[in-house]
């Protein structure tokens, strides 16, 4: 399982959030300051235009009365121009233009623009309708009052001019004012606000970062501990069940060892008693072979023989020797069968995935489990014709052992093991007539550390591990139970096991 990297996600998330927030803030600040600037500049320009209009009312009246004439042709133009220039002096005004109602530029402080047609200009049309408009623009170069200035922020306003209480504009002024220093000031203010905001944000974030980092460390170490504990528990569960099995099997082994050992000791003692009689017999036979007579007479030292042999005769007859040895050999067969089964069961030497005969495995588990569960539990097998299953035999055996032991612990007296094919799966059922599992307990039985047994008896990991093993084989462990009647556990294994068979503890 890949850990969720809290620190990484929080960092990436907050950087993204920071960028977006700063972007939005910048745009908003810029829009706001520009709107302020435009509003201010327009008001200034409006006042200026009206003031100018008052001072040069006479000339204007002429100009607006002759809308098709440019004013430069007028004899008083020079004086007028100088007057306007004088009025502009000391103000941030760069250029003033005057348009008549038909859009003809009748006056401009930039002389070469006089006569230009503005009748289609949106700003002019708006002003002609009585609504002053302004626009901010940046100019690399700008001609103002016959001189070039460069790198300017300029606001141009179209201002409607009303003469003698006219209801509609008599003409339109266009005033260009220089807002470069103002705009710079606004920009500075913007930068300052952004810097302040981002430093507050950074401060907050770094505080948060430390909290998150320590939380992350804690979470990771907890996850690690949890996994370690889980592994440890699985391991100790395995060891516990192995220990229980070893104890049971060694008891099973002790029985043949006991009688074989006893028989051989008896034989060994009995053979000691045979030494003298067999010597005697051998000597007699040798004597018979040495002579060619059919009948010989012997003189025996009865006293010596009496001394060397027992008065009660032999404890064991010859056929009993055979019996003693025969039973000892049967004991040896019992022992080797037990050892072979134990070896097959654990399959320590073959803990990798291989084609496994489930029926054979069940025979094997049955043999082993007999010594672990009470003697009065009867196990029957109904084994169907099922294909070989690629799996880890020792783990699958562990599951069967666990299910059978559980059944025995639940007080079952009869346990049936059945195998059959079901579509693309092989199904193994363990059916018992034990006490059954109550419906309210049933959903919890596969949880780790859930147990109904005494604290010392069950770790509560058996079914949890069994389920994990089966699921790692791409299979399913199912249960159905009726209280008072018994329980059926079904192991469903796909005939084609997924290639990525996982290793479990």
């Amino acid at each position: 399982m890949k850990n969720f990297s809290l620190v990484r996600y929080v960092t990436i998330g907050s950087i993204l959030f920071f960028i977006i927030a700063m972007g939005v803030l910048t745009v908003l600040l810029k829009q706001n300051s520009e709107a302020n600037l435009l509003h201010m500049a327009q008001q200034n320009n409006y006042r200026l235009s009206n003031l100018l209009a008052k001072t040069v009312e006479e000339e204007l009246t002429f100009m607006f009365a002759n809308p098709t004439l440019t004013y430069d042709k007028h004899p008083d133009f020079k004086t007028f121009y100088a007057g306007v220039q004088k009025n502009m002096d000391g103000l941030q005004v760069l250029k003033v233009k005057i348009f008549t109602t038909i859009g003809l530029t009748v006056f401009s402080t930039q002389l070469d623009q006089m006569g230009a047609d503005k009748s289609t200009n949106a700003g002019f049309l708006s002003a002609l309708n009585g609504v002053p408009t302004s626009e901010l623009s940046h100019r690399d170069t700008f001609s103002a009052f016959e001189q070039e200035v460069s790198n300017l922020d300029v606001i141009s306003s179209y201002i409607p001019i009303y003469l003698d209480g006219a209801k509609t504009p008599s003409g339109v002024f266009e005033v260009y004012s220089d807002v470069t220093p103002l705009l710079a000031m606004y920009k500075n203010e913007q930068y300052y606000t952004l810097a302040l905001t981002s430093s507050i944000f950074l401060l907050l974030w770094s505080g948060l970062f430390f909290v998150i980092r320590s939380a992350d460390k804690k979470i990771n170490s907890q996850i690690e501990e949890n996994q370690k504990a889980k592994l440890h528990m699985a391991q100790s569960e395995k060891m516990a069940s192995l220990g229980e099995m070893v104890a049971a099997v060694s008891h099973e082994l002790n029985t043949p060892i006991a009688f074989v050992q006893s028989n051989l000791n008896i034989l060994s003692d009995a053979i000691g008693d045979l030494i003298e009689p067999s010597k005697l017999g051998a000597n007699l036979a040798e004597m018979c072979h040495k002579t060619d007579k059919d009948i010989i007479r012997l003189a025996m030292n009865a006293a010596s023989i009496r001394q060397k042999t027992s008065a009660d005769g032999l404890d064991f007859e010859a056929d009993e020797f055979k019996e003693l040895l025969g039973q000892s050999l049967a004991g040896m067969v019992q022992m080797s069968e037990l050892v072979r089964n134990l070896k097959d069961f654990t399959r320590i030497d073959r803990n990798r995935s291989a084609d496994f005969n489930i029926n054979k495995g069940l025979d094997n588990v049955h043999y082993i489990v007999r010594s672990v569960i009470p003697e009065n539990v009867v196990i029957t097998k109904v084994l169907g014709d099922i294909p070989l299953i690629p799996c880890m035999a020792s783990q699958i055996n562990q599951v069967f052992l666990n299910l059978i032991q559980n059944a025995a612990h639940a007080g079952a007296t009869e346990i049936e093991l059945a195998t059959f094919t079901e579509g693309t799966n092989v199904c193994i059922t363990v059916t018992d007539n034990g006490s059954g599992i109550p419906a309210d307990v049933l959903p919890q039985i596969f949880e780790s550390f859930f147990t109904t047994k005494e604290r010392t008896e069950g770790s509560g990991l058996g079914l949890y591990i069994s389920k994990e093993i089966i699921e790692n084989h791409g299979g399913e462990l199912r249960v159905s139970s009726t209280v008072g009647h018994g329980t059926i556990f079904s192991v469903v294994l796909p005939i084609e096991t997924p290639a990525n068979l996982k290793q479990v503890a």
Partner: protein
Amino acid sequence: MTMNKPTIMFVDDEQHILNAMNWLFRKQYNLLFANSGEQAVALLKEHSIDVLISDQKMPGMCGTEVLKAARELSPDTVRILLTGYSDYNAAVSSVNEGEVFRFCQKPWKNDNLKDLVLQAVDIAQMTKTPVSVASTATTAPPLAPATSSFMDRSAGVLIVDMGLKTADQIKPTLNPLTECFVATNLKDAIELLEAKSVGVLIIEHTHRTRQNVQFIKMMKQHHPEIITIVVCENEDINDVIELINAGQVFRFIRMPIRPAMMKMSIDSGLKHHDLLNLRPQLRSRYKVDASMFSAEPINLEAAIETHSDFSFKDLFSRIKRLGRTKDTVH
């Protein structure tokens, strides 16, 4: 069947074991064989049996159940458990329910088993209830609390409480007429044993009180009439086997103590003590010989580490003297 040969019954579900026993013992004894506990019970009812040797793990009745049945049907029969399976619960119930004489493990050594059977047969024949006594007293008191009045209530109960707080739990269960003494260490215990008349010794056995095992064994070696009840905390099968075979413990009581169980055990213990005083020849059933634990050297230093002025040797000699001083007192 020759009448003058003692009779031994073997119970085992493995025929090969019974055959081996047959070859081992057929010369000296009359032998009876049972393939199951049920068969053993049937034979117990029909025959007079001196020694019963049973396997523990069998289908149907298990060994301790056979022992329990034998204790009721034929109390004079000396009962031995012979098992390849070292199960703590089985060992404890063989004592508490079957009052087992010895707990033997498979595989056995032929010579040792022969010696044990010989010892058991001797004891069985020596302690056979005389017909006259058999009708009035039983060697094995029933497990149920005794209702009959005792002839001698002078013997008291000694509780050696070394940390399990057993005294506080046991005292309320005692009959108010029974004297109760409490010792918190072995030195106090021996002093109380010297001064008072004690019928039942209740002593705890934990991993911290290993020296108590030696104490129990010594006591039983010299004073089989003092009944030992062990309160045990740790479940070590080997300790239990040692305490059975070399300590002839009367009852094992597991922590936490159940008062009813405790009361029953103490009552039976006191009754049993009285019986052993009434018929001293019965004591040989509960006596253990020194050879039983001579193999294990006593660690004097570790045993009584808390009492520098008190050695195990001293304790040993005082236990030995105990009987004599008492005999003179009575």
